[in-house]
């Protein structure tokens, strides 16, 4: 990702998020950070995964606030703060713990603007992490993106690169709607280039991560690097030229970019690391099937997790996360079929 006229630095996904938080906190004193262990964590710098590193040192304990284990309570509090002048960025340590505060997120945050006839705005960002990929088990590995897409009033973001993570988190913080922001443990240590200069990535724009002509692969979050390496192999080994699209924000969804791609390639695969049934792929497949019916040369395939809670044993867990091979197999199926 090179941008004309920008100096670029290579940083990790975690560092990118950290920079976004720091920059936005400097820019706007209404921005505060709340969550468990955001002040110290294991390192003493902040955050179990260092996303909030050194923020407490710079902004103090009032704006970088450790919370008790009360997800429903502190998310509710963040909403209350958001409607009265602050811009809270809340950390929910694992995406699974969103289940502890669904009531405040869905019944309150998502509804306030509408049910008050526009009197209230809820500028809150709920950052969370998908824990898959290291045997943390059934209640620490879920990918509940689709549920939030089903809730009018929420926006949903899931970046896959340091560049997108930083630029989208900054946009999210500046937005006036409640936003669920999905990070991923498997992406935290990945590296990528970001501009030295300030930049943002607007919500609602998909990114074509790889241009191609033979088929379209829409990949979500953790699955983007995997889809890209699968695409590379497909080219090298089978001379199949896949276009890889990362929607980056699921709500609002950039349908146009996806539809245009499918109208060009006539084939679509959607790859996500969450459960297939009623997942993100179901929605994208449905939209594309509805809007590009006459262009499709093969059935749309969804590559996703099977209908199984995440096993702790690594021998089993790997079977529940789609792999490069699963993607390659699916691609070859629809190209041959």
């Amino acid at each position: 990702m090179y941008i004309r006229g920008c100096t670029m630095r290579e940083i990790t996904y975690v560092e990118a998020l950290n920079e976004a938080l720091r920059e936005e906190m400097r820019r706007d004193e209404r921005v505060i950070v709340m969550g468990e262990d955001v002040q110290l964590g294991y390192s003493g710098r902040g955050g179990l995964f260092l996303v909030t590193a050194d923020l407490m040192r710079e902004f103090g304990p009032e704006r970088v606030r450790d919370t008790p284990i009360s997800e429903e309570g502190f998310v509710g509090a963040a909403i209350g703060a958001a409607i009265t002048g602050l811009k809270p960025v809340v950390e929910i340590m694992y995406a699974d713990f969103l289940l502890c505060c669904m009531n405040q997120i869905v019944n309150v945050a998502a509804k306030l603007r509408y049910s008050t006839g526009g009197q209230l705005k809820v500028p809150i960002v709920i950052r969370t992490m998908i824990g898959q990929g290291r045997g943390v088990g059934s209640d620490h590995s879920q990918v509940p993106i689709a549920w939030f897409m089903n809730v009018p009033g929420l926006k949903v973001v899931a970046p896959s690169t340091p560049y997108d993570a930083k630029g989208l988190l900054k946009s999210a913080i500046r937005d006036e709607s409640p936003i669920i922001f999905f990070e991923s443990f498997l992406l935290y240590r990945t590296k990528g280039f970001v501009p030295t200069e300030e930049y943002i990535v607007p919500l609602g724009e998909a990114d074509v991560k790889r241009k191609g002509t033979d088929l379209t692969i829409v990949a979500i979050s953790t699955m983007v690097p995997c889809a890209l390496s699968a695409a590379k192999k497909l080219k090298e080994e089978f001379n199949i030229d896949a276009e890889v699209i990362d929607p980056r924000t699921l709500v609002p969804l950039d349908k146009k970019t996806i539809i245009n791609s499918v109208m060009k390639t006539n084939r679509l695969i959607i790859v996500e690391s969450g459960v297939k049934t009623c997942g993100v792929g179901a929605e994208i497949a449905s939209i594309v099937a509805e809007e590009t019916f006459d262009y499709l040369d093969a059935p749309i395939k969804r590559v996703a997790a099977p209908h199984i809670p995440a096993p702790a044993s690594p021998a089993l867990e790997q079977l529940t996360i789609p792999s490069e091979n699963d993607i390659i197999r699916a691609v070859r199926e629809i190209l041959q079929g």
Partner: protein
Amino acid sequence: MYKLLREAEGEGLERLHSDLLIWMYTKMLEIRRFEEKIEEEYRKGLIPGLVHLSIGQEAVAVGVCANLRDDDYVIGTHRGHGIAIAKGVPLDKLAAEILGKETGCCKGRGGSMRVAYVDKGLLYSCPIVGTGLPLAVGAGLSIKLRKTNQVAVCFFGDGASNTGDFHEALNLASIWRLPVIFICENNMYAISVHVKKSTSVENISDRARGYNIPGFTVDGNDVIAVYKIVREAVQRARNGEGPTLIECKTYRIVGHGTTDPGIAYRTIEEIEEWKRKCPIDRLRRYLIANGILSEEDLNRIGSEVEARVREAIKFAEESPYPSPDQVAEYVY
């Protein structure tokens, strides 16, 4: 302009402005008349959704809000009309909201259970029991960080005191020492379930100790007592001394909602007994006994209130419904 009086009750030394007392009387009456009219409108089929009246509980909302400035925050409940009126929501906008009209304070999108009127500090009324408490904590946090001296007040029922939200909110308000006042309207029932059956303590204020904050129980049908205890809590909050839990014991003399006759799970005697404890009659007697208002004054106030309520309902009835082409506004 202000007529001062000695109080007959309490410490006995406190003096309340008579116009404050008159204001409280008037507001309570406004709530009562308004709710009665709303019930009629419901029977006429003009109100959608669920409607929960606060007849009998007027002293709580009024005694609390009498302490508040327009810029103080309030979070109400599903039983929120009285709270809204006490906090200053115009009757016409409130009635229109309940009838689902575009002229309502939430443009008809919220309805009876979700009244909000930000201009007067009423942030929201929470129909999901318990959810208001964390919201109020957040409003308190915002006040603290913005360094204003507002307060945030949260109303909730006896039933709500058994939700996880109650616990998490009170703990947060305490550790962060926030200017939040938690007002429990203990009307002894959560729908058909008596508080004894659902709640492990005698007084809900007993739970304050579990959060190391002051907790009080007060006669919720005595508007002066409510006013005074809340006044102290508001002072503490404005002085940075943290939250307070105040339990107001009261009773809804009507059913839970307009579809509930309210007699299957409680006795007629109990209802009659509480009718005799009517907070409005009580203040009325007090005003007369203390020479603050004459029967004549009271009748005049009564007619004025009636007229205002009638006007508001008329306004609501005559207002247009939201236009279909605006159904998708205010989502983001």
